[in-house]
């Protein structure tokens, strides 16, 4: 029986090819636009968040209690319990440890206040892929850790380039000023405040410079499944003595808000679009039903069950919806893929993007839920739009149907 219904539905669609194609292209265009936009917006926000969490805050940041308020070098984290937790907890993907102190960087001509970050290159590469932010030079501290990696904005303010010598000075643990000469081995661009005030040097070298034999200032933790585990892990970590544990959105509340605002916006636009699309399908379906009133009347008089006729009509709507979805997904998916690989180059807006911590090449993300949600929405629109003509048909009597002109 299904094959007959299928044939009838298909025949009906092909009879009015222009119309059907119009509906299918409408859904396809709808989908293509929505998918691309959603992917691009989400990509933008994801990029902003990623830049911040990878270079500055991690998914979770752990400090010694009171550090964020006071910023004293002596407020260090040195807890065996913490190390054990970090090593053994399966939900943690990776972590890196940093020593931080405010200080001064100087060349023969200029000097600037900066923050010294004592890092371990391998840890940071694994944890935050800090190496991806290098724009010039290399991701290394050269022989005997005499190199430094600095932010791009800082480099330009100091008029320094790869190989330039810089002197960093900072107050060490015994309140003396300690200095060291370094050569710039790499310059990075994270699109965060680090570009302006960060000097990264080898962690062990920082220990020697600042006389900090043990302990660290900050632990950046990356989780395997951030959304699921972050609150729980924060609770677990907070249980360890002497620590303060911050989520990335507590350090950057504005980013989380951007994300939420974006999600709401996507939802509203999608809703609007599908309502209108539903209207389109409705129009076509109702005309399609109305013009076949006579046919249906005869079929009903001959004994066809109403449910069977209903199935034909529903199937027509669904077929258009699926074909529209298919085409739209293919084009949308292709566009998303292109945007994901090559990104959208918005270099003409570079100053504006810098102001908001975004790169000038915007990449899209592809999430399966885009397609699932779109499918559900299209199906729903098709279903509801076919419903009204069906109700109308249901209430009418076969005889009067046959008599319609």
């Amino acid at each position, binding site marked *: 029986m299904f094959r007959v219904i299928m044939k009838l539905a298909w025949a009906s669609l092909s009879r009015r090819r*222009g*119309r059907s194609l*119009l*509906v299918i*292209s*409408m859904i396809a*265009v*709808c989908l293509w*636009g*929505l998918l691309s*936009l959603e992917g691009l*917006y989400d990509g933008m926000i994801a990029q902003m968040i990623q830049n911040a969490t990878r270079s500055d805050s991690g998914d979770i940041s752990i400090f010694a209690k009171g550090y964020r308020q006071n910023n004293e070098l002596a407020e260090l984290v040195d807890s065996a319990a913490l190390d054990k937790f970090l090593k053994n907890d399966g939900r943690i993907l990776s972590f890196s440890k940093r020593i931080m102190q405010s200080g001064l960087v100087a060349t023969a001509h200029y000097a600037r206040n900066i923050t010294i970050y004592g890092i371990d290159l391998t840890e940071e590469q694994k944890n935050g892929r800090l190496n991806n932010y290098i724009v010039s030079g290399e991701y290394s501290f050269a022989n005997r850790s005499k190199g430094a990696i600095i932010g791009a904005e800082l480099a330009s303010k100091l008029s320094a380039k790869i190989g330039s010598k810089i002197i960093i000075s900072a107050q060490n643990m015994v309140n003396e000023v300690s200095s060291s000469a370094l050569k710039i081995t790499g310059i990075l661009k994270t699109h965060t405040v680090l570009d302006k005030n960060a000097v990264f040097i080898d962690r062990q070298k920082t220990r020697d410079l600042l006389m900090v034999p043990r302990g660290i200032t900050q632990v950046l933790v990356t989780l395997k499944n951030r959304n699921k585990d972050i609150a729980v892990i924060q609770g677990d970590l907070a249980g360890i003595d002497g620590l303060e544990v911050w989520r990335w959105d507590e350090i*950057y*509340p*504005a980013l989380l*808000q*951007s994300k939420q*605002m974006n999600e709401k*916006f996507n939802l509203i*636009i999608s809703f*609007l*679009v599908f309502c*209108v*699309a539903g*209207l*389109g399908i409705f*129009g*076509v379906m109702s*005309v399609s039903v109305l*013009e076949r009133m006579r046919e249906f009347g005869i079929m009903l008089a001959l004994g066809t069950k109403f449910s069977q006729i209903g199935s034909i009509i529903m199937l027509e709507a669904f077929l258009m919806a699926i074909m529209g979805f298919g085409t739209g997904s293919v084009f949308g998916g292709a566009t998303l893929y292109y945007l994901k690989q090559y990104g959208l180059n*918005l270099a003409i*807006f*570079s*100053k*504006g*993007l*810098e*102001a*908001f911590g975004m790169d000038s090449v915007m990449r899209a993300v592809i999430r399966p839920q885009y397609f699932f949600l779109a499918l559900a929405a299209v199906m729903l629109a098709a279903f509801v739009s076919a419903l009204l003509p069906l109700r109308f048909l249901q209430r009418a009597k076969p005889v009067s149907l046959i008599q319609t002109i």
Partner: protein
Amino acid sequence: MFIKIAIKNICAYRKRSIITVALTAFSTALLIFSSALMTGSHNKMLANAVEVYPGYLQITQKDFRDVPSYDNLIFDVKAMHRKLSSIPGIAAIGARFETFVLFAAENKTVGGMLAGIEPKNENRLSRLAQSLKEGSYLSDGDAAQVYLGVGLAKKLQVKVGDTLAFVGTGADYSFSADILYVKGIFQTGSFDFDNSTAFVNKAYFDDAMAAENYATQIIVLPQNPSKSDALAEQINQQLGTEYQALGWRKSMDGLVEAMELDSVFGYISLAIIFLVIFFVIMIYTLLNIMGRSREIGMMRALGTTPGQVFIMLWMECLILGMLSVFIGGLFGGGLTAYFHFHPIQLSGYEEQFKQYGLMAAALPTVFRPIMIARDILIILTLSLFAAIYPIFKVNRYRPLEAIHHV
């Protein structure tokens, strides 16, 4: 006569007419409201950022922006006033002397900016007076009274009526120090700014800083803020190469571009919605016109030329279109006008704006008839465009075919 027929048809095919009108009116209203909201909110954010302190137009000595030292001050404010007085389009002028000092209260010492301002002029040039939180704003006769940011007051742990001291370097490199009484505390909403700046009356400060007739910058309020750049050009020509006048569009270009980018994305989102609407209107027009194939075939058989058919159908679309954009225009314009006077309150998203220094808790729309007219025209054109395919399609049928069209 065509018009009469068109109107009759419109009334006869009510469903199509209503849906077309509804969709088109909705699009019109949406476009009008969205562009008004985007423009309005961007303008407000920019205005907020500019008006809090930076000002619409800044004049400095030519090297001051790169090397902000005492060597690059404006050394004759009075002469500058004279030169500026001959330029039309200036609503207000004020001089500022900004310097970096150490503040000390009880046992806390904090570094920050202390600036001498002309209180009465400054009132028109920036939002300092309006940002008052406690106590009162400065007045022209004040001596050692300070107006400081809420974050700075917290760091120093002072309230209105307390004293604090500052030590700094005067314009002649002498030591400058004095005790100040806290007259008022302000909160602009910009975290960095409130944490590190304080203001005193310039007349008093000039004395303490040996800066009489000097200024680090002069702020100008144009009569027409949107023409700041043109005014800056004029001023530059008048003042010569020694000085540089910069309009806010140049000095805050990052923010300006960011707003433009936001608009671009906004319009792209709207475009997608309109694309779908365009399709749906086309669908309904098609359905309607194809449904009338018989009728049209009959007319053709009776001698109506394809051209006349075209005009008739076109008329329908035109009348429907104009009616819809009129309704949509009224509705959209009404919404715009309402939100112009009662801006949208955004509770819960302030954090996001604050981090970028945009104090925008309320977004207004702009009410500009030209913009509304433009938007109406766009939608009207689009809706007429949507009708082209169906009309051509029906005209291609030969009369007999059309009559037998099922």
